[in-house]
């Protein structure tokens, strides 16, 4: 935990985005997490992604549940609306908020306990509905605030600080999301910001549900030898497959990508992401192949990172429902009333 207050002035040479804001304008209050917590690195990556995407702070909604990860929305983009809900229920609140106002950008920050244990039902149903949100899981395999119990993402054989190794099958959010038809699935590592920021930008821009599962080590309860979610273990086993580069609308695609190694994907706002394949055998457009690849490498003890699956064709929630483009919350109430005197006609069938 940092006890040093942030300075109130910014350096004049700080880079500004299109809105004239600096990255400092996208910061939040001082983190109260442990020093070295992976979640703080994720917070920094979110700040950079939102800043670089020129998102107006008040047009961003930061949603969370309960847990260490769910505290972090207070630590980024202070001028955004935040909603720290109840344990495991962030997806339903986000679904409701999004259904009421489709014009905001939604980022939900959750953890492995919040999303894979108490909230697994809401997690899977938000995917089914293809809620247009960026869903971040800060995955450390452990409950921090209640002091070190395993979560549902703990790997078999992973050793806790005290007690016996985990014996139960882990729930992997990535393969779960893949089986449910999530339309953007990525995995990153809190210690690799260079890879993580583009993954988050792609997720924020994707039109539909995007999952970014981030291995984010818990320095206090799950960073020792024998842990499979430690910094050391993740660095040793991390295997990039498809990385991303983000290209803003109107920006020319430079030719630094070798032909065949990069695929541009145009997003709904005119921007593009370049899928940069590192393992040429990986196909991020095939669910079946992605499954097998993930499973094979999981069995080999490897942690696959990068953009693992993307489907830009499926309709997001509002379009599936056939809703108007204007946010439902902005429709003038008078426009929602049946015509004057219509009640009499409605009641005729009850006579």
């Amino acid at each position: 935990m940092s006890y040093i207050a942030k300075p109130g002035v910014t350096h004049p040479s700080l880079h500004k985005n299109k809105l004239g804001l600096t990255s400092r304008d996208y910061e939040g209050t001082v983190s109260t997490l442990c020093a070295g917590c992976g979640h703080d690195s994720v917070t920094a990556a979110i700040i950079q992604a939102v800043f670089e995407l020129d998102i107006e702070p008040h047009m961003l909604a930061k949603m969370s549940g309960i847990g260490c990860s769910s505290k972090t929305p207070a630590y980024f983009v202070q001028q955004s609306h935040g909603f720290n809900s109840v344990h495991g229920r962030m997806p339903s609140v986000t679904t409701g908020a999004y259904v009421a106002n489709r014009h905001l950008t939604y980022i939900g920050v959750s953890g492995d306990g919040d999303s894979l244990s108490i909230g697994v039902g809401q997690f899977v149903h938000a995917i089914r509905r293809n809620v247009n949100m960026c869903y971040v899981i800060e995955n450390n395999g452990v409950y921090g605030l209640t002091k070190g119990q395993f979560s549902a993402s703990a790997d078999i054989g992973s050793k806790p600080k005290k007690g016996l190794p985990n014996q139960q099958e882990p729930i992997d959010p990535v393969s779960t999301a893949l089986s449910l038809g999530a339309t953007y699935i990525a995995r990153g590592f809190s210690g690799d910001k260079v890879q993580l920021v583009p993954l988050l930008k792609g997720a924020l821009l994707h039109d539909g549900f995007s999952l970014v599962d981030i291995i984010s080590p818990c320095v206090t309860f799950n960073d020792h030898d024998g842990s499979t979610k430690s910094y050391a273990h993740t660095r040793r086993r991390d295997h990039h497959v498809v990385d991303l580069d983000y290209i803003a609308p109107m920006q020319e695609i430079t030719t630094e990508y070798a032909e065949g190694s990069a695929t541009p994907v145009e997003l709904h706002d005119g921007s593009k992401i370049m899928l940069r394949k590192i393992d040429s055998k990986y196909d991020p457009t095939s669910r079946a192949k992605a499954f097998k690849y993930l499973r094979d490498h999981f069995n080999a003890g490897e942690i696959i990172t990068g953009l693992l699956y993307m489907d830009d064709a499926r309709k997001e929630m509002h379009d599936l429902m056939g809703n108007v483009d204007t946010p439902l919350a902005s429709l003038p109430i008078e426009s929602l009333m049946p015509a004057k005197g219509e009640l009499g006609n409605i009641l005729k069938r009850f006579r």
Partner: protein
Amino acid sequence: MAGINDVVIKIATVNGTGSASANGLLRKAIFRMGIPVVGKNYFPSNIQGLPTWYEIRVTKDGYQCRSDRVDLMVAMNAQTYAKDMGDVISGGWLVYDSTWPRSSLLNRADINVVGIPLSRMCNEHFDGVRTRILMKNIAYVGAIAALLDIDLEVIKGLLEETFAEKGHLIASNMEAIHLGYDYAVEKYSCPLPPKVEKMDATGKHVVIDGNTASALGCVYAGATVGAWYPITPSTSLMDGFRAFCAQYRIDPESGKRTYAIIQAEDELAAIGMVLGASWMGARAFTPTSGPGISLMSEFIGFGYYAEIPAVIFNVQRTGPSTGMPTRTQQSDILSCAYASHGDTKHVLLFPADPYECFTMTPLAFDLADRLQTPVMVLSDLDIGMNDWMVPEFEWDDDYVHDRGKILSAEELEEMEAFYRYLDVDGDAIPYRTLPGTHPKGSYFTRGSGHTKLGAYTENSRDYQEVVDRLTEKWETARTLMPAPEIVYSKFNKAAILTFGSGNGACKEALDRLDKRNIGLNYCRVKAFPFSDSVRDFIDKHEVVYVVEQNRDAQLRALLILDSEAPPNKLVALLHYNGMPITAGFVVNRILEEMSKGQAA
């Protein structure tokens, strides 16, 4: 005893055989003759095969509750034949399908038996198994029409409306009507003494169920988001909303929807969606029943503490646990009043009938917005799923909905700084902002301890300041609640106090007691927290009979808790067997209590 325009018809059928439309036809025909009716369903938690009953009370006095007698039983279900026959009042009538002989054991000397060979006649006149079953239902309507002298032209008119686009069905249904009608006229002396005669007592009235009325209320409240998990007996509320929206909520230019209905994965998600949508500024609601409230409780407490509007319809059923899902009760008022852990209390509205389900729905949304808190509308299965004759609803097209204290972008621009939980106006209601309006309006919504400025806190004084303001807000809420319905008969030291669907039985009981020269005063509470006038009413009486449909006298407990009413004055009269309460129950219990008082 039955008389002209005072007769109770009960029809026993098998669930899933299509009798509902025949029963509806019968009930509507009597209503169209200008005679007040009450329609009650007694149905099983089942899709097909189990016994089901529909009861039509023809009541010239326009009483609203179930009667406790059966004058004319239509026994169409062999499974329940013996019991159904046993239910007929001495001197009453029993109609049965005489295609098959009745066992000689199943006879009662004190009732009149009317045999109509419904199956045989329908098999002779119609083809196809399904058609024959459906027409048998229509044929018993014809027989009852003959026995009670129901106008065939009215029945024909109703069929013409129903089958306006399927003309051939009008003729075949009328044929079935005549099979029953003509046979009854030929073989029995029709009409019976308790028959119907045209009246003029249903003008400007409708017959409607409470869930449909609430759904219509949601349309007029400007609700745009409904999230729900299907549960009996609330399901027809969302069905109704969907049907109304399909007609009135399609944008004419784009053909797209100006409403969203989400079938959630469970009630936890349904209320989460409602809070998310309300936080964004949409008017959002969820219909549910007792088990749903149990699941929603954590979020209801969140809504209370974070001060987010929400409208929850609890169409109560018989508890505890799964209880009897297709039976009625008023047993959730305590769990709703104090839903969730910690110090929480919630605004409740108690509609007494479908008319109030309609009028109280826009009110519920207005109160939720004004008070920035979840508001629960507590009806029950009796109101929600039965057919009530009520005055036609009215809507003032100039009505201005109260969206409460929401700051606009212009107002925020002018402000120095915005703080979410400050009591600026002294009414303990803070201002709120909607996400996306203006950068200055941003704040962090949380269920954890917060200061009046909206910041996280673990400081005792700052925490207490906010929860104490919530107590003050509760007192503001009290002043905004609809006043109780109070009726003074003549001076009397005793009174009846009830709520919700107890209204019909209590009003009828007052009339019956009046005929015995027992004049009681009457108070029907419409909302929680109780207005000061409720306590004043109790203070004026020596004894108040609290009539409610639960085992544990929950309304009585709430009166003591919230109004500090003296417990020794409040005598609970409790009806909790799952059937709607009757006037007979109220009268008998009051006479019992009064005789106890005299003995002492």
